[in-house]
């Protein structure tokens, strides 16, 4: 693979991150399979996928902490192998298990990260103020004694304190409760407004909608890259949301409907997918009445990212075919 390096000046102007057929194995296991994508300057770009999809491997390669087997990548025009020193100055990296010093206080952690980048908290306070002020009342507390949500805010402050051009956030919201997650994304939006390119990964499908573009990744391969809206538009099936008084029986029964493509539980409802135009609402209604269901409610719905992700997974792995929440009786 020939390195593009900074050859394409125009490309480098538009793109903050360029990745070209990156491959990485750990022994027999292929963590990344010829992965290619690019992130535009100032974009909020999300990698959506479960643990083991290859997200962390990719982030570590881009943060110049891990070498790929083949392929190449640039960050702000710099090569991840050749120019690793330059890249380290201009990126902020927040690894999955926040790399805070547990036995240093909140303030000491932030000061430490500022110092190694040759700056001070005071110099860049404006940038972190929004986030850091929320944990500042606890600035003398040891990082090891913070709750998950507070650790996350401190780790983000530390990744930001040297005013990076690109932020790599590897699963910043994993294990964090729904309230803190929502707040965190609000913070990311404000950072994006300041022109920082943000590459973020998450296993929570519902966070995809908050990104400018997303890559859906599974087993080391990107299944799709698009805006969240376009991912939803590309969903090839028709979709009903069905509720009855017995969700458990409902999932079983819908499985028996011949036109059913897949049935998945989504909270109190079942999402039933079918070949477009091949299954009317009335037909589902009649089928469920016949099966003895009461309080049947059927709505034609737009898929969400999770519907799309599961559809792509089934396409990539056809043996799984119809899998549903409650498959055994």
């Amino acid at each position, binding site marked *: 693979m020939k390195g593009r390096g900074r050859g394409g000046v125009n490309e480098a102007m538009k793109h903050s991150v360029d990745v070209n057929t990156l491959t990485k194995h750990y022994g027999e296991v292929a963590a990344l399979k010829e992965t290619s994508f690019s992130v535009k300057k100032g974009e909020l770009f999300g990698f959506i996928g479960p643990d083991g999809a290859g997200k962390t491997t990719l982030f570590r390669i881009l943060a110049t902490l891990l070498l790929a087997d083949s392929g190449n990548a640039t960050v702000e025009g710099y090569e991840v192998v050749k120019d690793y020193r330059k890249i380290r100055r201009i990126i902020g990296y927040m690894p999955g298990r926040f790399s805070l010093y547990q036995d240093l206080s909140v303030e000491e952690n932030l000061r430490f990260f500022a110092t190694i980048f040759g700056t001070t908290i005071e110099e860049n306070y404006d940038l972190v103020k929004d986030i850091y002020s929320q944990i500042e009342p606890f600035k003398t507390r040891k990082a090891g004694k913070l709750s998950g949500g*507070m650790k996350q805010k401190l780790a983000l402050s530390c990744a930001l304190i040297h005013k990076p051009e690109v932020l790599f956030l590897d699963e910043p919201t994993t294990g964090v409760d729904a309230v803190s997650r929502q707040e965190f994304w609000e913070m990311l939006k404000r950072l994006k407004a300041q022109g920082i390119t943000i590459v973020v990964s998450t296993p929570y499908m519902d966070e995809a909608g908050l990104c400018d573009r997303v890559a859906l990744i599974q087993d080391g391969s990107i299944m799709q890259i698009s805006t969240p809206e376009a991912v939803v538009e590309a969903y090839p099936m028709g979709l009903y949301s069905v509720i009855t008084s017995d969700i458990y029986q409902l999932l079983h029964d819908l499985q028996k409907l011949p036109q059913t493509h897949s049935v998945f539980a989504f909270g109190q409802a079942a999402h039933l997918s079918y070949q477009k135009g091949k299954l009317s609402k009335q037909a589902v209604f009649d089928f469920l009445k016949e099966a003895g269901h009461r309080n049947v409610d059927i709505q034609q719905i737009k898929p969400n990212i999770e519907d799309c992700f599961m559809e792509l997974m089934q396409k990539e792995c056809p043996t799984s075919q119809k*899998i549903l929440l*409650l498959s055994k009786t």
Partner: protein
Amino acid sequence: MPNESENIIIVQDLVKKFGNFIANDHLTFEVRKGEIFGFLGANGAGKTTALRILCGLSYPTSGELTVAGYNVYTQREKIKRNIGYMSQKFSLYDDLTVYENIRFYAAIYGLSGKEIDRRATVLMQKLNLGEARNKLIREIPLGWKQKLAFSVAIIHDPKIVFLDEPTGGVDPITRRQFWDMIYDAARNGITVFVTTHYMDEAEYCDRVSIMVDGRIAALDTPMALRETFHAGNMNEVFLKLARAQVKEVA
């Protein structure tokens, strides 16, 4: 539906303090035999503290608690024999094989040699892990690990299984298959006590409690909670309850 008269966990006025900090502030609730009980709350709300006490790993400061019929002050070893526990972090040994992990846990729970072999065979068949029998845990996919971890947590047919964020990070299909297994266990009479950050999973529970700032702010069926809080789904219920306290919890 579980029998309402039979409570397998009874918690009355549980208080747990760490110095001046009150992690559990007069918790009172019951878990019914055979039900799937969701235990939700923001980070730092006091879930883990309560969970550790229920598993016999930590003493309450005060309060009356019975787990599987045993007293949490005086019969902790009996409690440990009658419960299963699984968390995302501490589950299987990476450098042991699939079979070795099953044997290890079965032996820890006091099963006999013959019984261990029998249950290990059944388990590997059920999970379709026959070919992976001699593979190291670190070599098998996360989804398999999680299913296996759950299965070993209930290999001794406990009365209650405690699941601490069991589905974190797994793909959406595996996450649903995992709930399939939870339902199976509940149908076999095992009471399931589960914490999760996925609010759609809260809908799969028979009843859900939501902790805010050391107290139980709400406890009911998901449907009743949605009605009480005029919310379309459990995520809205959670946000309404937890948001109010977010400043203190930080």
